[in-house]
């Protein structure tokens, strides 16, 4: 393992400190318990709080700021944060209109946020994101994982909250976006959890992991490496099989890098995906390409399609000012 770190135990705090220093105009960092808030507390709006294990940067800390989150609670690497973090964050950012938690659907995250919610002295609701179509959905299981589509949920709900909408409306829009969003990812290499010091999985030079999770969880299947177009075909098929969009539907296409895959390749994937989706009669009216939801140092990428409607498009386009997404401000 070769990484820029000093001491594995200090990695998180040092990285958060650098983040907060570099973006001091946008965020404030609170330690012990750890959480990040906007530099200037917002008033008279639903407080939007997310969080999860670290190692997915810019998710979630990088999305704290005007138009997205009020606070983010970073856990240890790939480990969900604990309820005291959510409670302290909620205490700091609650602005009289309740708290909405946006939580990726993993047992650990769900339980920790649930315990925080039970102890929370404010009105609250939770949006669980579960956009990863690599995982079969079933009422008897944990269900799907929340992955890169979470960024779209955070952007869109964050925008609505900025208008002064109430908790129920924010929760409803979050659920709607989640239900219209599907993601499928592929890894070319494993990630290495710093504290473990060795790759999470072994993968040969001529293999890929189709449907990998953003923590390096195994996916649907291990396959032979092949051309980008063939890989994208499988990703897009899985997404369309799930979303079943009507021809003519308007979509947001997000190509997300897991960290180690260069932009040059992400744009090539975008090109391939856009071609396939347009051939299906879909209208790509919004696009985003970049490392939005990473998996430590993994090489790989995911493709996300969100079915737009006027409401979602409008809230995607609205002003945002965070470390990770910024426009119109």
């Amino acid at each position: 393992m070769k990484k820029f770190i000093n001491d594995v135990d200090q990695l998180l705090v040092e990285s958060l400190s650098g983040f907060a220093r570099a973006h001091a105009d946008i965020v404030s960092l609170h330690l012990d318990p750890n959480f990040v808030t906007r530099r200037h507390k917002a008033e008279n709006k639903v407080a939007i709080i997310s969080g999860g294990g670290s190692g997915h940067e810019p998710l979630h800390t990088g999305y704290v700021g005007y138009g997205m989150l009020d606070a983010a609670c970073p856990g240890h690497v790939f480990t969900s944060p604990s309820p005291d973090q959510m409670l302290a964050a909620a205490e700091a950012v609650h602005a009289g209109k309740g708290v909405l938690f946006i939580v990726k659907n993993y047992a650990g995250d769900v339980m920790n946020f649930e315990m925080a919610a039970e102890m929370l002295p404010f009105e609250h609701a939770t949006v669980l994101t579960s956009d990863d179509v690599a995982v079969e959905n079933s009422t008897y299981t944990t269900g799907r994982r929340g992955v890169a589509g979470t960024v779209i949920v955070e952007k869109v709900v964050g925008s609505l909250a900025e208008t002064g909408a109430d908790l129920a409306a924010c929760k409803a829009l979050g659920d709607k976006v989640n239900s219209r969003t599907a993601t499928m990812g592929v890894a070319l290499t494993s990630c290495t959890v710093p504290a473990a010091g060795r790759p999470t999985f072994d993968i040969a030079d001529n293999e890929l992991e189709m449907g990998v999770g953003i923590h390096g969880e195994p996916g649907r299947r291990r396959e032979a490496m092949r051309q980008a177009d063939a890989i994208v075909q499988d990703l897009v098929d899985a997404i369309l099989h799930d979303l079943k969009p009507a021809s003519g539907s308007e979509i947001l296409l997000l190509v997300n890098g897991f960290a180690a895959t260069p932009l040059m390749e992400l744009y090539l994937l975008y090109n391939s995906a856009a071609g396939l989706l347009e051939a299906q009669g879909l209208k790509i009216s919004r696009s985003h390409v970049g490392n939005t939801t990473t998996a430590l140092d993994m090489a790989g990428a995911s493709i996300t399609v969100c079915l737009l409607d006027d409401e979602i498009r409008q809230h995607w386009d609205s002003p945002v000012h965070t470390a990770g997404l910024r426009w119109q401000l």
Partner: protein
Amino acid sequence: MRTDFILKAIEAVNQAVLASEAELESLDREIGDGDHFINLKRGCAALLDMREELAALPADQVLQRMGMKLLSTIGGASGPLLATIFMTLAKHEKTETADTLPKIAAAFAASVEAVKQRGKAGLGEKTMLDTLIPVADTFSQLSNAGEPADAIYTAIQQAAEQGMRSTRDLIATKGRAAFLGERAIGHIDAGARSSQIIIHTIAELARKPL
């Protein structure tokens, strides 16, 4: 329960967990995200750090503080679940001191029930509950039947081991391994193994005179 026993147990469990680093790490790497050992180690270290503070407290407060500490230091799936065990034990200890084996068994059974609630899971879902549920059942049955303590400890250890091993052939429906479907078969669940190690260690400690 007695505070001095709890403190001894913290040390013993810490050692047992540290001794299983490679195994726990690789179990969670195979069908999870590889951090289960690190999470437990962090929790154990936090408990070790608070021994002095705990030593002066009655057992119910000790258990409650341990639960809160685990809740805020472990994170992940195992954090809230292990914390739930201690917080439930604390609640029981407060209303009625668990000074006999049947009472301890009842408190433990209530804790496992609370874990089931928190995790919305039951037997056969390839989680720590596959260790915990058989242990709670065995413990209650044998202690209510008035079996000798040593026999109970041995039976608990066997139940834990058997439960842990049963996870190997299961498909997971809860926790991170649930994302794997059939690919989880053939791997023991990390949380089932760590709970078994913890239970084995505490039973061993209970066997010896303090």
